């Protein structure tokens, strides 16, 4: 249908105005701000690429690289656990069992809790002396395994990732399950008649037919992995202890832009350059995502 311009504007302007002013313009402004030095008040001083120099080769280089690697580790472990376990549990829920509906609801409950509160809750459970996790290990005779999970450099980050998985796994299970249930049952029935076993059906039929879902989820996981903040904030704080072993780009950004005990001078320009760095990492993947969404829209 066609529409008169003035009507069209009435429908389009409110959403586009809010979205442009509060999301798109600030994203661009971040880019501009990253070339300035600015304590947050007063005037901005143009410094060219100095912020990026500080980040990549100057005093922040080690911290930036350290945090970046932790984001990458986050992504890899999340892919393995959320997509791997998610597929396994979705397959189980998709087989003909009774009570699948109840399981589905239970699976999704942790997703309803704010991430930061999930962090606080597990922070209590993981307390080294009196937390329930170590108490439970002692109770079942595995006291030797009890340790300060968040206090040791080699376990803290993985522990935080596991807390994330505990909270988010249900989402991946349900998305993958929906994709599996989209497959025509006749197809699987026919494979059974041809003598295929469950293993073959899983890898030759179900996995290929749900692959686009895995691809989308991997893309989203990538974008989200570089925006981790809440759980780290709640479990090890903005200083991302012990000794920055749980630092991610999100917490590094928070310290540079908004400060926190023991951080150096706060500089919004430097903070903005951290977000630009994150932006650059996720951009190729984000563009791919928008492209895929748009393509599916056109073919639908």
């Amino acid at each position, binding site marked *: 249908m066609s529409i008169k311009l003035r009507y069209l504007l009435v429908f389009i302007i409110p959403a586009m105005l809010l979205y442009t002013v*509060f*999301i798109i313009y600030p994203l661009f402004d971040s880019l501009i701000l990253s070339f300035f030095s600015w304590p947050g008040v007063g005037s901005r001083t143009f410094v060219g690429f100095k912020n990026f120099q500080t980040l990549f080769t100057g005093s922040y280089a080690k911290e930036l690289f350290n945090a970046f690697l932790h984001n990458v580790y986050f992504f890899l472990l999340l892919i393995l656990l959320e997509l791997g376990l998610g597929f396994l549990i979705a397959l189980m829920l998709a087989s003909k069992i009774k009570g699948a509906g109840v399981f589905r609801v239970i699976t999704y409950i942790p997703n309803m809790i704010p991430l*930061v509160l999930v962090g606080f809750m597990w922070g209590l459970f993981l307390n080294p002396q009196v937390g329930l996790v170590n108490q439970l290990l002692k109770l079942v005779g595995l006291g030797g395994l009890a340790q300060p999970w968040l206090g040791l450099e080699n376990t803290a980050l993985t522990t935080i990732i596991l807390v994330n998985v505990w909270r988010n796994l249900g989402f991946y299970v349900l998305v993958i399950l929906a994709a599996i249930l989209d497959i025509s049952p006749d197809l699987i029935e026919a494979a059974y008649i041809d003598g295929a076993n469950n293993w073959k059906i899983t890898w030759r039929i179900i996995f290929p037919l749900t692959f686009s879902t895995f691809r989308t989820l991997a893309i989203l996981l990538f974008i989200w992995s570089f925006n981790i*903040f809440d759980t780290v904030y709640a479990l090890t704080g903005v200083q991302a202890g012990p000794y920055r072993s749980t630092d991610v780009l999100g917490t590094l950004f928070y310290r540079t832009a908004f400060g926190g005990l023991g951080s150096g001078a706060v500089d919004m320009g430097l903070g903005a350059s951290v977000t630009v760095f994150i932006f650059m990492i996720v951009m190729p993947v984000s563009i791919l995502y928008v492209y895929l969404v*748009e393509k599916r829209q056109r073919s639908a």
Partner: protein
Amino acid sequence: MLKLSLFGKIMVYILLAVYCLVILVPFFMMILNSLKSMRDIFMKPFSFPTKVLYDNYTKAWNQAGIGTGYKNSAFVAGVSVIGILIVSSMFAYAISKYEFKGRRFLFVYSMLGLAFPARLAIIPIFILLRNLTLTNSLFGLILIYTSVNIPFSVFLLKNFIDGVPNELSEAARIDGATPMQIYWKVVLPLVKPALSIVAIVSFVNVWNDFFFPLIFINDKSKATITLAVSIFFGEYSNQWPLLFSGLTLAIAPTIILFLLFSRQFITGMTQGAIK
């Protein structure tokens, strides 16, 4: 789907039961410990309280400002949801039902927000709100949340509105209806399920958010529920019974909402992110 032998079925049930325990036991322990004394929590973490202390809840409610947190979060989430529904459905209707130049561009443009988290723009947003004197204000939060949720809502609503047959709106137009009337009287009533999904999902997104209140709000009386609990954990870090009961109170509303509307939640959350 997959057919399982009896042994396979038993294995599946066992594994799923273990998974459910991993999910549910922490909640159970949180509630159990929220009713205990400090001594009980430390000495007998897994047993029932020697004396049930309902009082923990009253104390946590008052000291953590749970009531204020609920009120602020409900206000912010409620108003944001209304804003999101109105602006997103109008926009989605226009780009779904009308042909005009730039329509595809507008759709792609509105999808950019799905791909680039608004957190990356937090400093300019902060400056913008400060210039508008909307920092430390619930209204500022509402503006941000309405904007942040536009991409996902437009996407979901457009999908549904695409499914409304064009013949219906054509017929209404021939009868003399204006675009506004077609939108309000023909299209919206037909996509009610989608509107309820958008409402539920964005309500939870807003209610659960922590990052924006952390940056924008510095007044306890304006703290949302997540910020209130976070401040409480900082101030009362040794009062374990109160921490557990405060957490339980903070978590309860969304869980109850979810159990009541689990079907809409599940469709909304899974479709919104993926389709």
